């Protein structure tokens, strides 16, 4: 640690801080944010991050639609969301200020790079007057610095081109923020040396900028209302930690599952935001026995995965909503031929291209019901980035044990946000049992395990088991093509029952928080976990009789859910879509589940859920 202990004494102690870094897409805000997150994790704080970037890779510089943001919430206590409103906003140009100022807390700290406030940039951002001088920022603690100039001064000795030199300003800013919150610079220095190993002059210039920002904090005369702070360590459960985002956790989960099952894994995918990084991560893990295949389209991606599963590997395909739409027919084939398969849907705003870089939970219906015919399959949804690791293994386990495709639903928020994750002990992970059928005696491809109803997995290459499968209905006994009406009825029910049987290995409905009866049961799923959990905690502190249940298994629904709902006066379902889970619960359980939708491409704020529940409680009070 490079902050002298005497200095720590002078620092103001804070319980939690929310910082938003915002700048042009080319300003390197995502790197700044992830570096600050790593440094913060190493300081022992709990944290949660939310990168929010535009769909355009490099939108015209200086425009509001080219603004890229990264929010981090860190604290000395357990936190679960990236924070409602930032306490600190770092705005690297006028457009970033324009877009993000409305979010900043009143009285919050506003750090602005005045070097980017040229009249051209002001105009591009839609300002007719300079906000730095027109008094409109009075309600904030303002720190105006010409970061551009100070950066250029700091990197001068390295004789970089104007473009490379200018790019170092994010590291200058990071240095200042490290000083402000007492973070260690060394991990970022190591990162820069590794990142620019082939261009050491760039590494050293960036490090010089980082140091210069830090020294600036130490030596410049800052306004008296701007003082360095410290956020003490959080009380996390003992163990070894790292930060992880959802797609990385999924990739590692699949690599682990390949080891646990000891069979080849095959990942077929076609690039799409926000699922692409799953392909990037898995492509590096070939030594775990994972073959990756970038297919010509989403249909080929799932088709190749189905072919691999037929061949005795575990086929996996990953995409986002538009890709799942293309895969629908092939998912039906996997259901009909009863092959193990995992389909990952990293949801984004829809329909159609929708909001490709924003988060949403609007593929729930598509996952549960979006195919021709009666075509059920298990649908599971992790609640946090860290859970993605376990859910990749769970999806594999279900797919193989029940010989069925499984949909694993995450979303852009889970995929991209990072959180501290307690590293599990790999030796404690339960092996995944795989039984290929080999006995020709009395063989039929649709011979089933009486308990699970899974059919046998007979892979090509096995002598004596030559057989044909396909999308046409098959006779329940012989496995030959059958158009028999009664057989189709029977097979449809059997496939449905097999999927319901997955409950055999899933836990019953369990509350996350609160008593098992009360006024409001809040039911969530997926990435809304943090916001709901903290909202319910706040409400309970106020004495409200509110409980939280988080569905991680959406199909089949967990046992005992209806009974649990019945013990509450109201059931409220906050979700990032127009009421899909609420409708599903009403249809399946005949309970009066009330939807609380948010369809803005943004996660819930804790406050929004608290207010919604308070309003509902108050209305009930009035109507009594």
């Amino acid at each position: 640690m490079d902050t002298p202990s005497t200095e720590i004494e002078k620092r103001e102690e804070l319980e939690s801080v929310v910082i938003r870094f915002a700048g042009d897409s080319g300003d390197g805000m995502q790197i700044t944010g992830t570096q600050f997150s790593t440094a913060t994790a190493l300081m022992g704080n709990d944290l949660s991050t939310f990168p929010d970037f535009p769909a355009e890779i490099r939108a015209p510089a200086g425009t509001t639609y080219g603004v890229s943001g990264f929010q981090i919430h860190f604290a000395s206590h357990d936190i679960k969301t990236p924070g409602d409103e930032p306490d600190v906003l770092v705005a690297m140009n006028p457009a970033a200020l324009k877009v993000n100022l409305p979010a900043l807390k009143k009285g919050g700290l506003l750090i602005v790079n005045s070097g980017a406030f040229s009249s051209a940039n002001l105009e591009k951002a839609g300002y007719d007057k300079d906000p730095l001088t027109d008094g409109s920022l009075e309600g904030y603690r303002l720190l105006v610095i010409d970061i551009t100039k100070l950066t250029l001064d700091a990197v001068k000795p390295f004789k970089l081109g104007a473009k490379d030199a200018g790019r170092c300003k994010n590291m200058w800013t990071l240095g200042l923020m490290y000083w402000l919150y007492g973070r260690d610079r060394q991990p970022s220095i190591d990162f820069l040396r590794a990142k620019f190993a082939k261009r050491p002059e760039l590494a050293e210039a960036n490090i010089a900028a980082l140091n210069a920002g830090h020294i600036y904090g130490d030596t410049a005369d800052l306004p008296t209302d701007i003082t360095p702070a410290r956020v003490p360590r959080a009380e996390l459960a003992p163990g070894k930690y790292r930060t992880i985002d959802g797609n990385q956790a999924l990739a590692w989960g699949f690599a682990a599952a390949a080891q646990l099952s000891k069979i080849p894994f095959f990942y077929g995918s076609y690039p799409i935001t926000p699922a692409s990084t799953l392909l990037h991560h898995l492509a590096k893990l070939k030594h775990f026995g994972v073959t990756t295949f970038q297919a010509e389209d989403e249909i080929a991606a799932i088709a190749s995965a189905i072919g691999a599963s037929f061949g005795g590997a575990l086929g996996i395909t990953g995409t986002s909503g538009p890709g799942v739409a293309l895969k629908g027919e092939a998912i039906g084939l996997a259901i009909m031929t009863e092959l193990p398969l995992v389909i990952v849907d990293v949801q984004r705003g829809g329909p159609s291209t929708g909001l490709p870089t924003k988060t949403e939970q609007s593929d729930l219906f598509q996952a549960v019901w979006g195919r021709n015919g009666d075509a059920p399959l298990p649908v599971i949804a992790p609640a946090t980035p860290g859970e993605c690791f376990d859910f990749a293994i769970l999806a594999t386990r279900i797919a193989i044990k029940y010989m069925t495709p499984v949909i694993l639903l995450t979303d852009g928020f889970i995929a991209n946000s990072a959180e501290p994750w307690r590293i599990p002990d790999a030796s404690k992970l339960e092996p995944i049992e795989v039984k290929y059928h080999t006995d020709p005696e009395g063989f039929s491809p649709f011979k089933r395990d009486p308990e699970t109803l899974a059919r046998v997995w007979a892979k090509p290459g096995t002598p004596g088991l030559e057989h044909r499968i396909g999308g046409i209905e098959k006779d329940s006994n012989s496995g030959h093509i059958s158009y028999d009406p009664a057989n189709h009825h029977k097979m449809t029910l059997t496939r449905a029952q097999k999927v319901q049987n997955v409950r055999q290995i899933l836990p019953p409905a369990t509350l996350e928080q609160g008593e098992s009866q009360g006024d409001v049961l809040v039911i969530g799923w997926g990435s809304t976990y943090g916001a709901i959990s903290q909202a319910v905690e706040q409400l309970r502190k106020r004495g409200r009789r509110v409980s939280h249940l988080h569905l991680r298994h959406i199909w089949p629904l967990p046992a005992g859910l209806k009974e649990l709902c019945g013990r509450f006066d109201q059931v409220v379902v906050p979700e990032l879509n127009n009421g899909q889970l609420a409708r599903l619960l009403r249809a399946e359980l005949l309970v009066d589940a009330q939807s609380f939708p948010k369809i803005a491409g943004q996660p819930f704020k804790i406050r929004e859920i608290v207010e919604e529940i308070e309003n509902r409680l108050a209305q009930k009070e009035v109507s009594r």
Partner: protein
Amino acid sequence: MSAHVPLTRKDFASDQEVRWCPGCGDYAILAAVQRVLPEVVEKRENTVFVSGIGCSSRFPYYMNTYGFHTIHGRAPAIATGLKLANPELDVWVITGDGDGLSIGGNHFLHVLRRNVDLQILLFNNQIYGLTKGQYSPTSVVGKVTPSTPFGSVDAPVIPAQVALGAAARFVARGFDVSKELPEVLRRAHQHRGASFVEILQNCPVFNDGAFVQITDRKEGPAHQLWLEHGKPMRFGVNNEKGIRLNPKTLAAEVVTIGEDGVTEDDILVHDETNRTMAWLLSSLPGVVALGVLYCDPAPSYDSAVVAQNELAKNKLGEPSIDALLNSGETWTVQ
């Protein structure tokens, strides 16, 4: 099992009743495949037929091997995944002119350019058989069908040209009832990489006689140019005709030896490794080139994937979940 007893034709016939229309060209193709397999296959259990949807795609049900009747147009992609999962398998793809060139056109392109080690047999009847006779991407202009009552106005594709354009390394052509078809299939099987075989197939119900020019017992042989590597391209009832390159138009033309001063030396000699020649042969005036148009092997995609997986294993060492999870920045909370 059957490892020591030689396999016969019967070993490859499944117990399922064949349900194509009487007189359908698919019967003859099935017979040719069942004849060739015992000669080229050592282990029946390693043979897999993957098909899409169409009359032609019912094929796997009639073969006593592993089989997968999939969805319309996607067989090449499914076969690619299967081959990558187990490169030991001998995988055949059965498709039709609609399945392979219309709905599955994209996969057809990519399986060929990747050069996945598969035999791809496209049954071209120039019609959609299973859906009762609509025109297909290979139907001739003017074809009257239920969906084109005034005759079709779309220009057809020539499958061999699509394949060559997709960088296929093996392109061959045969027809259903020809006695040379088994030999074409043998060559396709021998070739490592994607082997594309177009099989002209008569659909007596919806497009009868589409290929009568070459299949007619009497007149047909005069219009068949059977290619042999290193041999002059000659054909005709008395072998009097041949193919000559017109240097002005860069086109192949049909000439008669002895007429207009044409001698044997003017006739092109087939070089199956010559892509340009294959292109010329793909579409000839008044005669159909048959046999192996092009064969120029290159490393297959599946072998490259296996090699790269091995390389990664050698470079990255034994996989360890613990090492993976603990890589990068970590910290300990007491």
